[in-house]
């Protein structure tokens, strides 16, 4: 039976069996789509490019008095590039959902699914798989570029944060895509994600920022995740628990948003 044929074969509408059956089918289709289309690597291209441009072009910035990150500038930039890759993985999943609505596929999917929340879960699972590949690609480039992680087992902390950022970005993108259901959702998904990524300590640690960006980044949840991620990578974890709290809170807040988008799509028929 095909993946989509499995959609209605779960147990009763709204049951957990239906949820996982639908999620599995949607995730399988998405993953198949990613890996049969080289464009799935697109979310990795921008982070790799920014990583090369910033880690290569700005490495002397680590000599600025007060630059206290001990892992080297390549590692410093890697964490931001990794978080960018996973966040963009979520954004691109949002674009993909909007494309499914434009092509009419999502409408048929909604009719066939025994539990529509499974559609959302399926997209999130597929986004995690996609991000594992693109995030891995960014990591390989960073290792080739001279990054030497010193975090040992703390590195799992960085992986955990990246996973939560990906889920949060996917839920945000899914909510927007399901509410708008057209390609015009693209800029509305991409722009806030880019803003939240850039209004963070991208080039230097938070303590060296001055002016408006110092204030803005101190209020930006991504700052806590970024700084904790850098701590995990350099083997000097600080603020890890708080960063996890922020990331989990973002996911919990965005679940209702994504479900709101799903209900909007249901109402639209």
């Amino acid at each position, binding site marked *: 039976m095909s993946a989509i044929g499995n959609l209605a074969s779960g147990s009763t509408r709204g049951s957990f069996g239906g949820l996982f059956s639908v999620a599995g089918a949607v995730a399988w289709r998405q993953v198949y789509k990613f890996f049969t289309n080289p464009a799935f690597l697109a979310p990795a291209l921008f982070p790799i490019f920014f990583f090369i441009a910033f880690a290569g072009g700005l490495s002397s*910035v680590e000599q600025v008095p007060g630059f206290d990150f001990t892992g080297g500038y390549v590692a410093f930039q890697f964490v931001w590039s990794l978080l960018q890759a996973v966040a963009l993985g979520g954004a691109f999943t949002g674009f993909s959902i909007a494309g499914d609505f434009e092509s009419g596929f999502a409408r048929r999917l909604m009719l066939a699914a025994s539990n529509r929340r499974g559609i959302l879960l399926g997209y999130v699972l597929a986004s995690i798989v996609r991000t594992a590949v693109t995030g891995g690609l960014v990591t390989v480039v960073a290792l080739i570029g001279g990054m030497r992680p010193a975090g040992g087992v703390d590195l799992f902390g960085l992986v955990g944060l990246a996973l939560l950022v990906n889920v949060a970005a996917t839920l945000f993108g899914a909510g927007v895509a399901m509410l708008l259901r057209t390609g015009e959702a693209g800029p509305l998904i991409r722009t806030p994600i880019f803003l939240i990524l850039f209004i963070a300590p991208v080039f*230097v640690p938070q303590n060296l920022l001055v002016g408006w960006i110092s204030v803005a980044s101190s209020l930006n949840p991504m700052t806590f995740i970024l700084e904790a991620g850098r701590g995990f990578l350099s083997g000097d974890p600080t603020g890890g628990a708080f960063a996890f709290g922020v990331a989990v809170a973002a996911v919990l807040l965005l679940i209702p948003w994504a479900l709101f988008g799903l209900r909007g799509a249901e109402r639209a028929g």
Partner: protein
Amino acid sequence: MSSTLLTQVSHLGRRSVVRTLRQPGVMVSAILFPLMFFAITASGLDAATNLPGFPTASYLDFAFAFPLVQASLFGAITAGVDLARDIEGGFFDRLSLTPMRPVALLGGMLAGVMALGLIQGVIFLSIGLAVGVNIQSGFAGMLLLVALTILTALGFGGLGAILALRTGSGEAVESSFPLFFVAIFLSSINLPRDLIESDWFRLIATLNPVSYLVEGIRSLVITGWDPQALILGFGCAFGLIALSLAGAAASLRTRMAT
């Protein structure tokens, strides 16, 4: 240029400008995105002024070339996409059935790019002065700065035209955006070349003509009158224009022959 051709170019140039101005989304992107990156980079990298040998105490002044060069890039992409849409929509073919010369379409598009470059240059200069950018070369330098921005826009515009004429696809032109973006970032846009530590990056930045366009504009802001930087900046701009227009003319001939 004959007066007939000049009339045709002016008509199509006006069309190109009006078309761009009627797309608020394009105008907002062309103005807001460069300003956003400028604001973030200027504040985020301010600490770099503490590096020994950094040429100015204000990273705001140092980074001011960024929105001007990036805006030229946006203008080129926009114009390239519009030209590609003219090809996709059949306007180009219908035009070839009229006495209007196809080169007028190219000229009109490039006139539109220059007009957009002028608008962007004046807006960015006004905003820059308002937020405290100090132009060391004074009023004459500001005029030269806008002139170099327009020439840069024309050079990038020629590249946009080549892509549009070769592919005839707006999507293909739009997807070339990251390539232009890479060219900007792999230059001396964020740090002076002598302060770039990585040898391979410094080599790329030295070979990249965008570095000299940036350094030409930057010299007017942070140094005043630096003949070497200006000669290199204007030289690269004219070189880029010559090469891209020659390529666009050849692409136009190929397109007309098919």
